[in-house]
């Protein structure tokens, strides 16, 4: 159903797009229209069909039925390269450029200016520099791309895509690893590109960003089109309703009143703990039944704090005590022996072992602690994994499925299960809700509260300040790799945390 008045001309028109994988409908008769000069948010929970839509349009997978028109002419790209030639460029969440090549080489890979078959390096660099200046980016293009931040890498990827004469730019979760400031820069560039008449499809999980930047929203659910709306005419609650098909019991609703009992001895306590050039020495007390949240911008030292507490990096100053006894945390193994668990932010590279089954992933930490010579019997493994699959509602409830085939939210639950199986005293969760669909968000938060009530000490890192404000007993604000302030009890609310983070903006350029 075309609800939009056709004020701008339709740049990309998709009608009746259908795609099945092994008999399962991933996309079912989906229509989608992108007008030139608009930023169009494509939303839906994990598995709604967003990425299949993108892949079918860009020829990464072949569609079963449906028509894709670009500027009125039907196109049928057979691979991403043909899509780029047609004018549709895609930038994925994981930047797929080559970190070991220079920025300039990345920008012009496959189309370097040459003379007599030799690459004209100088010319390429000058072109690269001027291209990036157009994006407000003044960096040395002769340095390997991998030495720049993820944000810069993203901008380079976008610059390359746009420079390949793109008229349609697809951004798949471009902001997932950017901090607030970098997101603003990206949005500025998106608006600038839209102003030039480029149509932008923007896939994201962050509703705030949808409202901040998009003109129009298309929502998919279970492979079907739910609807297309103008962003300004769609209240947030209605949007969530479209995505979930049910009222989300607003996670931000109530901050329950809990009496914070600081009198008891902390479960784990750190004094002057730190590592040079990594994170400044900090004091931290973690109590059973309490959630301590670390808040701050990306790179402020949140993850660094978690890693040093867990022994993934070795502290070079300070002391640590667990249950009143002095300890040396020299490795993750040691931390696990002390009853710590850590769900890292980089779920794919540091969390899951993708090709092992859900069962093997769940029992991995328990098995590692028992040592290689005392294997868990198959029955014990089945019991443990079965228990947690049921407890955490992991789907599909098939312990033998390779974990790589599960959705992000379910992978996160498996990682939680891995640590819960070790019966930990302290659980460190680094961005537990990142890259997870909205429905699973609420579930993970409910779990955090439950674990806390069960008497676990929790250290949570999250960029979702609204969520943090709901469940945290204490919020430690970090800036420039140092712990700056601690808010506790009633002092925790979104404006207070945000203003503390934003206060005294770091004057390091």
């Amino acid at each position: 159903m075309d609800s939009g008045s056709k004020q701008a001309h339709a740049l990309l028109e998709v009608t009746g797009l259908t795609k099945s994988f092994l008999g399962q409908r991933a996309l079912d008769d989906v229509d989608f229209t992108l007008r030139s000069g608009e930023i169009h948010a494509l939303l839906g929970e994990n598995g709604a069909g967003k990425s299949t839509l993108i892949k079918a349009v860009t020829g990464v997978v072949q569609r079963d039925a449906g028509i894709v028109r670009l500027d009125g002419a039907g196109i049928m790209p057979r691979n991403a390269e043909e899509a780029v030639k047609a004018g549709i460029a895609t930038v994925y969440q994981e930047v797929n450029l080559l970190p070991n090549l220079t920025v300039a080489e990345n920008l012009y890979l496959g189309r370097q200016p040459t003379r007599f078959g030799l690459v004209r390096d100088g010319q390429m660099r000058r072109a690269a520099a001027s291209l990036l200046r157009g994006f407000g980016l003044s960096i040395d293009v002769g340095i390997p791309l991998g030495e720049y931040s993820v944000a810069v890498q993203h901008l380079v990827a976008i610059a390359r895509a746009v420079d390949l004469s793109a008229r349609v730019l697809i951004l798949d979760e471009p902001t997932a690893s950017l901090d607030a400031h970098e997101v603003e820069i990206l949005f500025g560039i998106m608006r600038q590109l839209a102003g030039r008449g480029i149509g932008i499809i923007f896939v994201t999980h962050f509703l705030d960003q949808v409202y901040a930047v998009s003109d129009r929203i298309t929502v998919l659910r279970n492979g079907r089109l739910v609807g297309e709306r103008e962003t300004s005419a769609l209240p947030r609650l209605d949007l969530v309703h479209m995505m979930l098909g049910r009222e989300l019991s607003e996670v931000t609703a109530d901050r329950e009143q809990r009496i914070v009992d600081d009198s008891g001895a902390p479960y784990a306590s750190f004094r002057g703990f730190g590592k040079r050039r990594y994170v400044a020495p900090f004091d931290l007390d973690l109590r059973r039944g309490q959630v301590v949240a670390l808040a701050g911008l990306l790179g402020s030292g949140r993850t660094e704090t978690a890693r040093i507490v867990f022994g993934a990096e070795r502290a070079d100053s300070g002391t640590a005590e667990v249950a009143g006894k002095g300890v040396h945390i020299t490795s993750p193994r040691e931390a696990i022996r002390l009853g710590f668990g850590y769900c890292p932010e980089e779920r794919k590279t540091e969390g899951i072992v993708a090709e092992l089954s859900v069962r093997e992933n769940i029992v991995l930490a328990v098995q590692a602690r028992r040592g290689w010579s005392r294997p868990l019997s198959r029955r014990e493994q089945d019991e443990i994994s079965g228990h947690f699959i049921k407890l955490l509602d992991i789907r599909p409830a098939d312990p033998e499925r390779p974990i790589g085939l599960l959705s992000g939210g379910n992978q996160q639950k498996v990682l939680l299960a891995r640590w819960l199986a070790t019966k930990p005293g302290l659980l460190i969760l680094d961005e537990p809700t990142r890259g997870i669909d909205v429905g699973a968000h609420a579930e993970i938060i409910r779990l955090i509260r439950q674990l806390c009530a069960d008497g676990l000490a929790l250290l949570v890192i999250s960029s979702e300040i609204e969520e943090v404000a709901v469940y945290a007993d204490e919020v430690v604000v970090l800036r420039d790799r140092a712990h700056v302030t601690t808010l506790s009890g009633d002092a925790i609310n979104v404006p207070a945390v945000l203003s503390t983070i934003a206060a005294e903006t770091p004057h390091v350029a």
Partner: protein
Amino acid sequence: MPFRLPKQGAPQILAFLAILLADRLVSPQFFDLRLQDGRLFGSLVDVFNRGAPVALLSLGMVLVIATRGIDLSVGAVMAIAGAVAASLVDTHSVPLALGAALGVGVLCGLWNGFLVAVLRIQPIVATLILMVAGRGIAQLITEGRIVTFTSPQLAWFGNGSILGIPAPVAITLGMLLLTLFLVRGSALGVLIEATGANARASELAGIGTWAVTIAAYVWCGLCSSVAGVIAAADILGADANNAGLWLELDAILAVVIGGTSLFGGRFSVILAVLGALIIQAMNTGILLSGYRPELNLVVKAVVVIAVLLLQSPRLAGLGHWFNRNRTI
């Protein structure tokens, strides 16, 4: 027990059977067995007997490859172990000579493991060191000569038999069972798979990844030294220049034919040994057929391509695509 093809190893089993069948076609007596001096003889027995060294190597190699590593030094370790056993056996006791040979294998494995797991040198470079140096060490031990020995006990490892089964085959079978017991009877197998598939995640899950890695290289060194002893016993002497030469490549090939990815992770010990037998069955077949042995290399390549194609996920996807077109 009804016979059914296991889901995982079907391509390898079918390939092995097909090659045996082809061998039977070029040599009608291929499946003939005869008992002589209490030991089985025949072309089929030869396949197992001649395949024993590479099968032994593949037992260790499969673990190393599963950790996302590779061990190029196995052939050189064979030469060292053979040299040690041959040069000690006539002056010292047989157990001491054997113990020294196997001990040297373990030491070589420790060295490789140390370079890879502790110093974090890329496996292919780290083991290249011993591949080159190891043969030199073996030549130093033998002082550049072929050291012969007379000990019948040591010779038994090459020519003896247990219950009619040639000693190399029996030893390989024993090592196979030992390896299976070691990796699947304990948790070592899954820890190796986790380490190979995602070392960072494994470390954060509390796995001592460096210990796991070293264990794999040590086992590989031990298996290589057993293979070295067999190779020396077979010719009643240690030839430092040729013992185990290029066998590291056959061992890697055997592991790959067995379906274990060079990117680490899931592995199958049994299928790796089957891979080694596939290679040997081809060798034997070509020798029996009377073609020039040089042809062996070409045929080997063809079979490798065939097995790998059967395992290729792309090809499976293609099959699905064909089916889809048919059903619509």
